[in-house]
């Protein structure tokens, strides 16, 4: 029988742990991108959440990338900014989204 690992509280994650993880939007969360906002709906809670354009870009990059670290690289390229300058923003974004159950983490290292 498969045993699920103990869930890790988002605030207990270090960036190093997060960097190697794969971010996934769970099946119970739907989202659509609009001109100036991405709107997410958590179907389990019925709550709506709005992301500003930066948040929308981060979500898109995280959803597509194999790891959070590679998403950081992609976002940095997109904005023409050194990755080190946006790592903290991406980390805080992920922690916030995890707290709201709008994303999940997979261990990309296998």
């Amino acid at each position: 029988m498969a045993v699920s690992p103990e869930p890790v509280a988002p605030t207990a994650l270090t960036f190093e742990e997060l960097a190697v993880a794969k971010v996934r939007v769970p099946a119970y969360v739907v989202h659509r991108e609009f001109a100036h906002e991405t709107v997410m709906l958590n179907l389990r809670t019925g709550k709506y959440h709005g992301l500003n354009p930066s948040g929308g870009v981060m979500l898109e990059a995280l959803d597509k990338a194999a790891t959070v670290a590679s998403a950081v690289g992609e976002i940095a390229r997109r904005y023409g900014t050194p990755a080190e300058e946006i790592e903290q923003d991406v980390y805080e974004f992920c922690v916030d989204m995890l707290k709201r159950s709008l994303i999940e983490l997979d261990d990309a290292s296998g």
Partner: protein
Amino acid sequence: MPPAETAAQRQSVGVEAHAGPPRRYRAFGLTWSSTFPLPLVETTSDAEPDVMLRLCEDVDALWSGNPRTPDWRFRIDGRRFVVQRGWAGDFRLAQQEGVRFHLDRAATLIACEPAVVSDPASQRLLLDTVLWTTTLLHGLEGLHASAVQTASGAVAFLAGSGGGKTSIAFELVRRGYPLVCDDVLILERRGGGFVAHPSPPLMNLPAAMPVQGVEVDPIARIGDESWVSVAHVATRQPSGLAHLFLLDRAPGLGGRIVAMEPTALDLLRHAQVHAFADAWELRRFELCSDLALRVPLSRIEADVDAAPSEIADLVERALTGAEAA
């Protein structure tokens, strides 16, 4: 596939001895048949009815019962209206201290208490709330809105209760735009867009509202409203949904129309998806998202005391500009 009315169904709803031959009507994108008269224009179409309306003395005897499910509640005419789903998937619809209805699991047979024949308020409840909630179970979607037909398609006005939806629609009807609906706009997805289906050609007008210049047939005075038929000035044809206007009225607001770049959140409180439909929350999100992305939405800013004619002027100018563009 159209429903077949079985002898058992006829017996189960206790059809009245006085019931006449079925009459057929078109409204909300569906064909309805009833054995009792309704203030609607009959359709000449031979299409089989999607939903049949029958009279029944004891509506509650038909309901399979289920006190555990959460109700779908809202207020109509100041009274609570409750939709409940039974064990068998059927529905009981009841107005607080008022008329009751039963809807079968397939949403093809509405049993109505006889009050719908003799009491105008009960009949209005049937032709408004009961019909549109039933329509939502047939896969169509809705918006709490009034709408008129223009050269470019249906134009809808969104607002909360008392926000002026009816007044602006009636003013535009006065100017020659056929009415699509007064209160609930039923939509069908087609070809990547939305088709607006006309409601029954009925309106609830403030009793004090002047109706000169519009051919209306009064049906009844209900509270401080006149329930009227506007069959002569309403469209019977579905049309593409061309534009949405959000009415935003507040003291001191100057009259202007502002094009919006909406999100689903702007439309959420106006969307109508049946509360017992499968995945209703997801469907409501998708409805609002698709409307926001595919249909132009503008905000009408106007003072609370602005006359409907002033708002209609703004709308006509906006529509003319849109067509010119």
